[in-house]
């Protein structure tokens, strides 16, 4: 009997209590939404800054020019070719177990793969990418 009364009392909530529950619900869900938005702000900020600052430097020459010393005309600029090939070479190499030999064997046995294309690309700027071209020269 006592527990039944207690249950009835529990079910009969005052309007103030109901209002409090509703307010808490809205407030907490609003807070989670706000925090979700805050979590995305850094991404938007980074992407905006990278594109805003980086797009002004982007040009065909940026992607194809090799390193020039600062002492010569127009020197000291970007050398994305060298970096790009070094980076792709590292990625391909790491994927093949961080070993040179499997990379060579793989490329020789698997033409027209990503690593093969990287090697082909590397040969076009071999003076700038000596390490990569030395690896890829094994295969051709």
């Amino acid at each position, binding site marked *: 009997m006592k527990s039944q009364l207690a249950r009835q009392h529990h079910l009969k909530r005052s309007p103030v209590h109901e209002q409090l*529950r509703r307010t*808490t*619900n809205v407030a907490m*869900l609003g807070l*989670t939404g706000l925090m979700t938005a805050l*979590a995305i702000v850094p*991404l938007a900020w*980074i992407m905006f800054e990278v594109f805003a600052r980086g797009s002004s430097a982007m040009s065909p020459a940026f992607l194809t020019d090799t390193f020039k010393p600062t002492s010569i005309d127009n020197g000291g600029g970007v050398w994305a070719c060298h970096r790009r090939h070094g980076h792709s070479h590292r990625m391909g190499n790491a994927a093949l177990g961080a070993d040179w030999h499997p990379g060579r064997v793989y490329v020789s046995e698997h033409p027209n793969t990503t690593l093969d294309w990287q090697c082909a690309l590397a040969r076009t700027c071999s003076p700038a990418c000596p390490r990569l071209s030395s690896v890829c020269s094994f295969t051709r």
Partner: protein
Amino acid sequence: MSTLQMPRQLKVTPSPLGRALQHGDIPFKVVIALSSVTLLALMVGVGVMLWLRSEPTRAQVGWTFITQTTWNPVGQVFGAAPFIVGTLATSLVAVLIAVPLGWASPFSWPSCARRNCARSSAFWSKLLAAIPSVVYGAWGIFVFIPQFVTPLGNWLMNSLGHYMPLFHGPFFGASSLAAGLILAVMILPTISAISRDVLLAVPRSQREAALALGSTEWETIWQVVLPYGLSGILGAVILGLGRALGETMAVTMVIGNVAQLTTSLLSPAYTMASVIANEWGESRTALYGSALIEIGLLLFLMSLLLNIMARLLVWSVARKTPEQRA
């Protein structure tokens, strides 16, 4: 003729070995066992090598290596306390900031499910994990510190610095606070993505039952969903903390790299990963190199200990029933 041969063919059964080989069971088990042993051997090998190579420092400096606050390679004085404290402080700041933000993202699911924004927010927050740490570092130096950390640090120093040693000045931008904030952004997708996966694994019937009984959406989250996925969420936090402990490049670029023991978050500091990255190239003496390797050993042990603790924590939470947890 063919009807007579059929029963004879059916009676031919291969030997257990032949059957296993035919279905690839044995090769599969061998490959799996080899992979497991290789992983374990790699971890043990790294630990053993770090232990052996750090022998000179352990023999000469001993336990004071952990408590000594002076790091002076020229004078051959090696104390790792500033790096240990710097690592723990930045990781702690990162976790304190990232946990509420990372948890809130999957919790906002019920409120914005109708607008289909939950998936897009999860997608965008996961994209943060794809940004290389050096980009975070460059963004931190050129954008985040001047535009956000410096005003925030100055405000903290002027308003709270007089009462709390945590925010004592002077403040120049590169600091533990900057490193902690950058780390928070970096570990956010880890915590958010794993928490979301854990919470999506909560049976839909549980949510619906709570809502049918009159619970509000927040009460459903707090009293039903959260207790159900608590172990997974704790695991997500520990994974994020593990990443924060070992992060090198972005932290090195924004923390200031000063080997000092300070209570202020606004002062420049140093972390264990940063000192190894910065000073390895100039470690000319055997003792200097050995000291850096011992810092690596400490970092390795810290990460290992953290993972063991996380596993124990997840086990202890997972063992309890939802009623016990509530």
